[in-house]
């Protein structure tokens, strides 16, 4: 199976570290904008500021799992192990953002709703999504054969990513404690700008993380291939 896969060269970092530095600065600017330039909400006061981290984390989590879906499907189609590694890199970052969404949501929930957690459809489906991807990452650790690992991971990755649609629609399909999606009609213009800036900052940060994790996963696989090739030559 390594006959085809050894033909690729691990991707280089190139200018990505520069992109990362830009992203961090953009994120800091976005947070400063949100914290200093938007007024307190009429109901929740300054607790409103949490939307500048909770909401971008949730949005970008969805994008990240869409990337998992894309590369998992492409792996099953083309059988290029780099697609499997790209899906794995996105899954790691997506799980991080998923955990962040849950944690920040709980921190938001306690002072506004009065509870840390409620078993409504939105929160439960988000937790299920998190557990599926914890399972995805565990699966990758448990399966040693790279091809089998890639196939199984692709299947779990696709099933998990479908759950994103359920998380999104949960507040429309079912009666939940969590409110429905906000939109520029329901969010005052003074909050929309900071929300958008921070959403893009999270998006860029996600792209950066996925890219750098993809590079390192490729390096690890390339090292495996080199070790196998050396062992075969030596035998």
């Amino acid at each position: 199976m390594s006959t085809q896969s050894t033909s690729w060269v691990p991707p280089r970092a190139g200018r990505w570290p520069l992109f990362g530095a830009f992203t961090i600065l953009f994120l800091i600017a976005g947070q400063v904008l949100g914290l200093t330039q938007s007024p307190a909400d009429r109901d929740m006061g300054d607790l409103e500021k949490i939307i500048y981290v909770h909401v971008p984390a949730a949005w970008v989590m969805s994008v990240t799992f869409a990337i998992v879906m894309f590369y998992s499907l492409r792996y099953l189609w083309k059988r290029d192990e780099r697609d499997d590694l790209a899906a794995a890199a996105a899954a790691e970052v997506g799980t991080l953002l998923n955990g962040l969404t849950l944690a920040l949501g709980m921190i938001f929930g306690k002072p506004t709703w009065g509870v840390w957690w409620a078993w409504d459809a939105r929160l439960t489906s988000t937790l299920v999504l998190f557990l599926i991807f914890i399972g995805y990452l565990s699966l990758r650790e448990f399966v040693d054969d790279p091809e089998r690992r890639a196939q199984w991971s692709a299947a779990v990755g696709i099933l998990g990513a479908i759950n994103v649609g359920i998380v999104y629609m949960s507040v429309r399909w079912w009666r939940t404690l969590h409110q429905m999606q906000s939109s520029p009609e329901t969010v005052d213009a003074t909050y929309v700008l900071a929300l958008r800036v921070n959403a893009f900052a999270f998006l860029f940060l996600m792209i950066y993380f996925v890219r750098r994790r993809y590079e390192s996963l490729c390096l690890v696989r390339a090292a495996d291939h080199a070790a196998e090739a050396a062992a075969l030559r030596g035998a």
Partner: protein
Amino acid sequence: MNIDESAVTPAKATKRRPIAIAAVVVVVGVFGWLLYGGLDKNVVFFLTPQELLAKGTSGYDVPVRLGGQVKPGTVKWDDKTLRLTFDVTDGQSDIAVQSSGAPPQMFRDGQGVVVEGRFGRDHVFNSTGLMIKHSNEYRPPKAGEKPQEMYKTLIKGSGA
């Protein structure tokens, strides 16, 4: 891995590919059907006052969540016993709720709330937990307005 396997697998993988894709499509379809179709509208976090009243006697003395708006003008706070009473309304029916302790910060007239507890035969809902259901709106206060903080007036009331 051995050399024989690596010579055979690419051809085998190409043949098995449509089957693998078909299998994934089937599993995804079943998974989707279970979640999209099977669950349908059954996941309800709370009942409205009208729905709870419609249950009749089967709605009494069972753990249930009741959701709606705090009916303006019905909030009463007893600073001695820390008892909080208010009506929850869905616009058609009202249910009187009895709670204890200071409410969450965002509690006020007209606010969406979900209360956990039991609906008594005396038609008073005994709440053991009070949650705020926030809308999807975020607005700054209008000119001259301050963020509403009813809980502060309640606590002030208790000190007076």
